[in-house]
């Protein structure tokens, strides 16, 4: 083939136990929420409205509580630095997925323990964890507490709008899920990324350490 074959591969420990647990817990919760949420909206009938509604509410509250642990984890471990957005090498990564990947080129920003997200992933996961998911949780919580709106002084709000925001978020998460499920096949082998999220270890190309821009925040804020 080409450069790929001559490249030495190393096994690195990328995802800690909690991280993997959180990933799979959240994926299960989100898939259940999508399946029951679209039914509650009336897109199809699968579990019956009452079941879908009950499960959706219960799982939604579960997600809120579990997410609080994730927020605690990401700030206490300093892992939030992995989500700092950057434009450095962004175009190279975009070019890789649009072009280089078909030629078998090496990934321009291979994963490292200290930088496990490439610039594109940083942007996507930051938008997801800091915007899309919180919007979905907040609109869901408001939707759920509709009967208390007037007591809370929120009587001016429109259920129509809250429901629309919540539905739009659902579609956005479903779109993300489709692309995400595909992107996990683009590792060193088809199953490399999935394996890493199950056992923590991933085979990546051995290259020099991470680059300056990937850890610039660390120099300023030592752990």
């Amino acid at each position, binding site marked *: 083939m080409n450069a790929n074959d001559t490249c030495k591969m190393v096994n690195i420990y990328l995802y800690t136990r909690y991280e993997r647990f959180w990933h799979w817990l959240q994926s299960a919760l989100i898939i259940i929420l999508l399946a029951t949420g679209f039914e509650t909206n009336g*897109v199809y009938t699968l579990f019956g*409205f009452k079941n879908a509604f009950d499960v959706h509410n219960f799982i939604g509250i579960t997600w809120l509580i579990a997410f609080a642990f994730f927020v605690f984890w990401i700030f206490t471990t300093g892992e939030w630095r992995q989500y700092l957005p950057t434009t450095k090498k962004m175009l190279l990564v975009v070019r890789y997925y649009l072009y280089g990947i078909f030629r078998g080129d090496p990934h321009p920003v291979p994963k490292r323990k200290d930088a496990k997200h490439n610039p594109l992933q940083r942007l996507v996961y930051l938008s997801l964890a800091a915007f899309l998911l919180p919007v979905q949780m907040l609109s869901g919580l408001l939707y759920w507490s509709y*009967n208390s709106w007037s007591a809370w002084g929120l009587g001016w709000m429109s259920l129509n709008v809250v429901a629309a925001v919540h*539905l739009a978020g659902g*579609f956005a998460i479903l779109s993300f899920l489709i692309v995400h*499920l*595909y992107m996990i096949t683009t590792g060193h082998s088809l199953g490399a990324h999935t394996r890493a999220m199950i056992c923590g270890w991933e085979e990546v190309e051995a290259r020099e350490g991470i680059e300056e821009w990937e850890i610039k925040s660390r120099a300023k804020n030592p752990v």
Partner: protein
Amino acid sequence: VFPTTHMVAPKDQSVGCNECHTRDDGRMAGIQGVYLPGRDGNKVIEILGWAAVLGSFAGVLLHALGRAVSSRRKEG
């Protein structure tokens, strides 16, 4: 704590949720001016939403096809 019920009594005479929360001509089909989950949706967001979902699906399908073809070409 936050009841999402309709305070219907007696319990054994209440009707199923889907008698109203449905798109297929439920008991409240003709009543306007209230947003009824399961009956009312948002047409614009639904169209845009499915467009995004199908677009994502088509995108990854094309990309996968491209990878399959290009890897076969390299092997052959």
